[in-house]
C-alpha cells in the first residue's frame, strides 16, 4: 500500500492520437493514493483512451504521464528518456490491475485458472499456492462455487467479478476500470458495483471510467468530466453533479440522468 496522499497518477498535457486524428488534446489529471476517481464523458471523448494510457496499453505521444513514480513508457538515463522494452512494460503493468468493458477472461481457462494465471505466469508463484490464493479472491467476489466453470458458462456479471478477482490477484497498487458495467444486462450491474464499492471502502486506489452516475456520486472521491480529448472540469461528485460549471457538462448530465436522479443531485 502507498502512503496516503501520495500521487499515484499525475498527467499534465497528455496528448495521443492516431494519424491525423487527435484523441487526447492535453489531459491534466491526478489521482492520489487511496482515492477513487470516476471519469465520465460522451463516447469518443477520450476517457477510455486516457485510461489505457495509464497502464501503457496506448502510447502517450505528448505531455507527461507519471504513474506510480514512473514516466509511462520511458525511463530517464543520463540526458535522455529511453523507450521501454516489452519487458519493462510488463514489469510496470504488474502493479496495475485493469478491468475491461468486455471482461476479456481467458476463454480456455476456468474461473480459478483465470485468477491464478497472473501469479503463476507473471510472478512465479507456485501453482498450489496460487490456486489457494485464487480461491480466496474468488470467494471475496462471491464466486467460490463457480471456480471450475469456464467463462462461457458464467453470466456477464459473474465474468466481470472473475475479471476483478483476476486483477486483484496481482496485488495491484492501482486499479483501472474501463466501463466495467456497460456490457452488462441491467439486472447484473449491481453485483459488479457492489464488489467495486467493497474495494473502495478497503482503500484501493481506483480510476473508474463509467456511465453509472449514482455509483460515481456515492463512491467517488473525485469526478472528472471528459469531452473532446480534454478534461472539461473536475470536482467533488456531489458538487459537480449538482452545479456543473460548464455548459458541456450540463448538456451531458441532462442526457444521461433521468429526472428523478437529477432531483437527487440537487
Amino acid at each position, binding site marked *: 500500500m502507498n502512503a496516503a496522499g501520495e500521487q499515484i497518477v499525475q498527467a499534465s498535457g497528455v496528448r495521443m492520437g492516431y494519424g491525423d486524428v487527435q484523441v487526447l488534446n492535453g489531459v491534466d489529471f491526478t489521482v492520489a493514493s487511496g482515492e477513487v476517481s470516476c471519469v465520465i464523458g460522451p463516447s469518443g471523448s477520450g476517457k477510455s483512451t486516457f485510461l489505457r494510457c495509464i*497502464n501503457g*496499453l496506448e502510447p502517450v505521444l505528448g505531455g507527461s504521464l507519471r504513474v506510480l513514480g514512473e514516466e509511462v513508457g520511458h525511463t530517464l538515463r543520463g540526458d535522455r528518456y529511453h523507450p521501454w522494452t*516489452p*519487458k519493462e*512494460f*510488463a*514489469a*510496470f*503493468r*504488474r502493479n*496495475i*490491475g*485493469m478491468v*475491461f468493458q*468486455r*471482461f*476479456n*477472461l*481467458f*476463454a*480456455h*481457462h476456468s474461473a480459478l485458472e483465470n485468477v491464478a*494465471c*497472473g501469479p503463476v*505466469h*507473471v510472478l512465479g508463484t507456485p501453482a498450489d499456492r496460487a490456486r489457494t490464493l485464487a480461491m480466496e479472491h474468488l470467494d471475496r467476489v462471491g464466486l467460490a462455487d463457480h471456480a471450475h466453470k*469456464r467463462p*462461457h458458462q458464467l453470466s456477464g456479471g459473474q465474468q466481470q467479478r472473475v*475479471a476483478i478477482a*483476476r*486483477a486483484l490477484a*496481482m496485488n495491484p497498487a492501482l486499479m483501472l476500470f474501463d466501463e466495467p458495467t456497460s456490457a452488462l444486462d441491467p439486472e447484473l450491474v449491481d453485483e459488479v458495483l457492489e464488489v467495486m464499492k467493497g474495494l473502495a471502502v478497503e482503500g484501493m486506489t481506483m480510476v473508474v471510467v463509467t456511465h453509472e452516475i449514482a455509483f460515481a456520486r456515492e463512491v467517488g472521491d473525485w469526478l472528472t468530466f471528459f469531452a473532446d480529448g480534454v478534461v472539461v472540469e473536475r470536482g467533488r461528485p456531489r458538487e459537480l453533479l449538482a452545479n456543473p460549471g460548464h455548459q458541456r457538462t450540463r448538456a451531458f448530465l441532462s442526457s444521461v440522468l433521468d429526472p428523478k436522479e437529477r432531483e437527487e443531485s440537487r
Partner: protein
Amino acid sequence: MRTEPITDASGRPIPVARTWHWGRWLAAAVALAVAARLAYLMVGNPNLDWGKVAEYLFHERILSGVWVTIEISVLATVLGLVLGVLVAIMRLAHNPVLSGLATFYIWFFRGTPVLVQLIFWYNLAFLFPELVLKIPFTMIGVKWDTNLVMTGFTSAMLGLGLNLAAYFAETVRAGIQAVDHGQTEAAYALGMTPAKRMRVIVLPQALRIIIPPTGNEFISMLKTTSLVYVVAGHDLMTNASQIYKANNLIMELLIVASLWYMLMTAVATFLQGRLERRFGSEAVRLVRGGGLAARILPKVTA
C-alpha cells in the same frame, strides 16, 4: 417421407402416393454400367496379371517402402508443423526484419515446386561438397561430407518439411489472428511479455483452428512423398518403381503402390476425424477434462 395416410375432412384415411426418384435410378444405372465396364476391362485384361499384384502386395521391398513412406511423412510433418509455428510467429512480429524474413520464406517455398526443392537438397553437394558448422574466427566446429548427409531420406524430409512449413505458417497465422484481441490486452494488463502472452494465452486458443487442418496436411504429405522417388529415398514409390524397372510389371506395381497409399490415407482420415471431433467442435473448450489436449497442452505451454 410421409407414409402414414392423411385423414380427409370426412374422416376417411387416404394413403400418400409414393415418390419415384427417377433421377436417382438413372444415375445409379449409368454409374453401374460404367463401373461394370471398367471392372471388366481391368479384371479381364490379358495384359494385367492380378496374380503378380497379389504376389507383390506384401513383397519385402514394398513393405519396407511403406514403412519409409510413413517415417518420412511423420518426420516431415513434424518438422513442417514446428517450423510453421515459428515462421507464423515471426510473420506476425513487430520486428520488421523478422516479419520480412518470414514473408520471404513463405514466398520462396510456396513459389518453387516441391519437386525442384527435393532435387536441390539431394544435389546440395554440387554447391557445397562439405557442410561446416563452426564458430566464426576459430577452429572449433564440425564438418560433414554433404553426400553422406544428404541421402534420399534426409533430402526428402528436409524438402517436404520446409515446404510444408511455408503452407502451415499461413494456417497458424490465421489461427493466431482469430483469437480475440481482448485476450492479448488482458494478458498484457496482467504484466505478461509478448512471448508469454503468445505461449500461455494466444497459442492454446489458436490450436482449435490450427489443429484440424494438420490432419489434411498429413494426408496430403503421405502422397506427396511419392515425389521422393526422384531422389531414391527408398520410400514406397521408389521401391515400386525400382521393381517395375527391373521386371516391367509397371501397371501391377502401380496398383500395389496405390492400394497401400489408399490404406494409409484411410487410416489417416480416420485419425483426422477423431482429431477434428476433439478440437473442431469443442471450440474454445479444448482443455477441458482429462482428454488428450489436457494432458499435452500443460506440457507444451508450461
